[in-house]
Each structure stands twice: as structure tokens, then as C-alpha cells.
């Protein structure tokens, strides 16, 4: 197994600032926008961006939720491992809101397909955008593309892209792992 660093902590930080600025450019004061982290891995990125927007860029109205897509996935009874559910925390209505889905790695696009269905249980949003830290652009199974992306990666299918977060693994970094 070989491991390559795609992004180190400094690079992750620069990218997060850029993504935050791009969000501000399109959503101004966030009065009609909500950020939704896709559980389980998108939660960390969403938390980090929301914190950055509030503290570094003084945006007051940042609303943040987390969406679990387990029961909406299309591989129930098809994968070898049992699917693990996580908590959904959406304490606001998404009716007529602009939503930004946030996930760490965009790979086949199937999670985002599930998230698009799952969010309908909370109302009819006006618009949905997608932000991902890593876009594995040649691995898509569905016609789904990010509106905001940190870094594009051209990984082959047996390679894995793993994102580490300081609050979970003790460091901010992105690795390319070859099994």
C-alpha cells in the first residue's frame, strides 16, 4: 500500500478560505442560504466552513445542518457491509431556500443523488448547489458536477482519496492511497 500527500494542512487552509470567499460572492449575507453537510464525512468540512464564515468573514446568518442519507442510498442489501446510519440535524425549513450541499470527496455522485432525494423530506428548496473539497472528475456514474471545488483529482478507480481533519485525525490533510 502506498500513500501520497495530495494536500497538506497549509494547502487545505488556503482552499477553505477560497471556498468561503466563493460562497460569499454568490450568497452575500446568507439570509436565504443554508449549508448542509452530508453525513458522515461532509460534516467536518461543513462545520469548518461555517466556522470560517462566522469568525473570519463575520457573516452573521450562517445556518448549518447535517443530512444523513443512509435510508436513501441505492446500495441497501447490495453492499457487503451493513449501512451505518448517522444523525440528521436540520432545525430549519428548507422551503424556498438556497441550499449548498457540502461533502469532502465527490466520487461516483451516488451520495449526492441520495442527498437530493433525502432533502425533499424537509421541503422544496429553491435551488441546490454542491461544494466538494475533492472532485474525482473521471469517476462519475451520474451526471452530477460540483459548483465549488477545492481540487480536482484524476485518480484511477482502485485508488482511494482520504481526507483527514484536525478534529478527527489530528491533522488537516488529503491523501491518495493505492492498495
Amino acid at each position, binding site marked *: 500500500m502506498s500513500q501520497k500527500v495530495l494536500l497538506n494542512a497549509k494547502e487545505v487552509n488556503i482552499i477553505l478560505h477560497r471556498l468561503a470567499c466563493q460562497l460569499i460572492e454568490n450568497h452575500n449575507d446568507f439570509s436565504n442560504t443554508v449549508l448542509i453537510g452530508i453525513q458522515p464525512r461532509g460534516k467536518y468540512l461543513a462545520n469548518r466552513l461555517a466556522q470560517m464564515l462566522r469568525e473570519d468573514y463575520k457573516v452573521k446568518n450562517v445556518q448549518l445542518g447535517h443530512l444523513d442519507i443512509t*435510508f436513501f442510498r441505492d446500495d*441497501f*442489501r447490495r453492499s457487503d457491509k*451493513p*449501512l451505518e*446510519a*448517522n444523525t440528521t440535524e436540520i432545525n430549519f425549513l428548507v422551503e424556498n431556500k438556497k441550499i449548498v450541499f457540502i461533502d469532502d470527496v465527490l466520487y461516483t455522485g451516488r451520495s449526492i443523488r441520495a442527498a437530493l432525494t433525502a432533502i*425533499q423530506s*424537509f421541503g422544496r428548496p429553491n435551488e441546490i448547489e454542491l461544494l466538494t473539497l475533492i472532485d474525482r472528475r473521471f469517476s462519475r456514474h451520474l451526471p452530477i458536477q460540483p459548483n465549488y471545488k477545492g481540487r480536482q483529482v484524476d485518480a484511477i478507480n482502485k485508488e482511494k482519496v482520504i481526507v483527514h481533519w484536525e478534529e478527527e485525525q489530528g491533522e488537516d490533510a488529503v491523501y491518495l492511497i493505492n492498495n
Partner: protein
Amino acid sequence: MSELSVNHLLGIKYLNNDDIKLIFETADHFKEVINRPIKKVPSLRDITIANLFFENSTRTKLSFELAEKRLSADVINFSASQSSVKKGETLIDTVNNILSMKVDMVVMRHPNPGASVFLSNHVNASIINAGDGAHEHPTQALLDSYSIRERLGSVRGKKVVIVGDILHSRVALSNIFALKTQGAQVMVCGPKTLIPKYIDKLGVTVETNLKKALNWCDVANMLRVQNERMSVSYFPSAREYTQQYGVNMKLLKSLDKEITIMHPGPINRGVEITSEVADSDQAIILDQVQNGVAIRMAVIYLLASKIKQ
């Protein structure tokens, strides 16, 4: 998330503590789902479930059906009173006929104890026992424990008294297994004629004085007197039963502490429990009903995940 250790839910006695924990954690997620504006998830859209009710039921049947529909399963219903069972068809024949229509899971209530175990040995589908005679009613016990966990934080170490007709009650037996597995202390209380011999072998204490039992417990689970299962009189009159084993507000107020009152339904108001008590803040009867849907969704979801394609 791990998997259940069983392929069927036939009784609590086949589950271990990890299974119960997994069901509760899954039910937490489904409880959040059923409080959304749109309460449905598509997980089981390729699963068909047959609800076979060979005995009357309102709450359990509705609760199972709702849970199945909230998971997007296809549902077919069967009740014995309107079927060929009356014409002399055997249980296995009835069920195999239904299964040949490509049914993946069977939820069954049957008046004979052990019917679901028997069925699981003979047919190729996942079986959920929705009550078999005076034997077990596992989903009821799970939702009872789940409601205790929700109200009091945990089940471990809590003192629970089950009051009433223990002899004819599948709810009592499943509750005893579930509570003991989770580390609660269990007492049964009722007239001697309605308490089975050797019940203390299950690790429960027996008390015939209701006031003493209520003073001991954190939670009282009040059972219904099952007149339909009684072939002889087990107590002189309903009035005398109520005087000795009915819970009223005066009795609750006279206790040293505030206890939680549960009832699996249907309630005979004024017999085992007065209306005032049933509708008070100490009673969590309607929470039990709501939790029933979440628990049944969890059980169906976890068992369905073990049906391989």
C-alpha cells in the same frame, strides 16, 4: 453499525444486549424520520411484506403497517377471519401460498404459542413475531424498554414492576426477557391466581401487595386483564380486582416518589388504571404508541438488510 445476530424476530429470548442496543440506535434515527414533514424513506422499495393476523389486533397491526409503508415496502394484509383458514387450510399451506407470490418478510400474530418459531423452520422468509398466544410479543417489549430509556435515560439498574394478568400475558414474558437482558430489576405483581408458578426462576421477584410494589419501582407497566383467554374465574369480580390492583390518582399521590406509568393497550379504563392516571403526565402510554412505529421500522429495516439479493 453491526448486524443483528438473528435472521428472524421470534422472541426477545433469542436476542442479546447488543441486538437490543442496535435496534434502539436505529429506532432513534427513524424517530427523527417520522417527525419530518415528509415521513417516508425509500429503503425497502424492493421488499414485500405480508402481515398475517390470525388473531385480532388494532394497534400492533396499524403500527406494523405504518412502519412498513414509511419504509416504502409493499404491504399485503391478511386476517384469518376473512380467509381460507376457516375452510381448514393449514398454517404452512396458507403461508407458502402467500410466499409463492414472492413475499420477502412475514409479520405474524397467531393464537398458538410457538407458531412463529414453527413457521421459521418451514418457510423461506424472514419472520417477525407480532404476538404468539401467551408466549412472546417482542416488538411490544422493545418499544416498552425504548420508552423507559427515553423517559429515564437508561434501562440498566431501573426497577420495573409488571402489574396484572401475568399468566396470560405475552407482553409480560417478553418484557421480563428484555428488561433482564438490559440489566433492569423486575418485579411482577398481581393476584396469586394470575401469576405463573416458578416465575421466580426467570429472576423476577413476586409481590402481591400493589402499594408495596409501586413504592419499590421506578416504572409500573400495567397490563390488561385478558378475559378472552380465561376459561375459569381467576378472581371474584372486576370490582374486587380494581380495589386491589387498580391504580388511581390517590394511590399514586400516596407514594414516596413519582413513578412512570406504562400500559401496552388496549386500556380497560377504570379497571386496571383510572382515566385520570391514564391521561396524567406520569403516563407515557401515547409515547409508547409513537415509539412503536420507530421500533418496528428499525426491526424491519435491520432484518431486511440481511435478506440478500
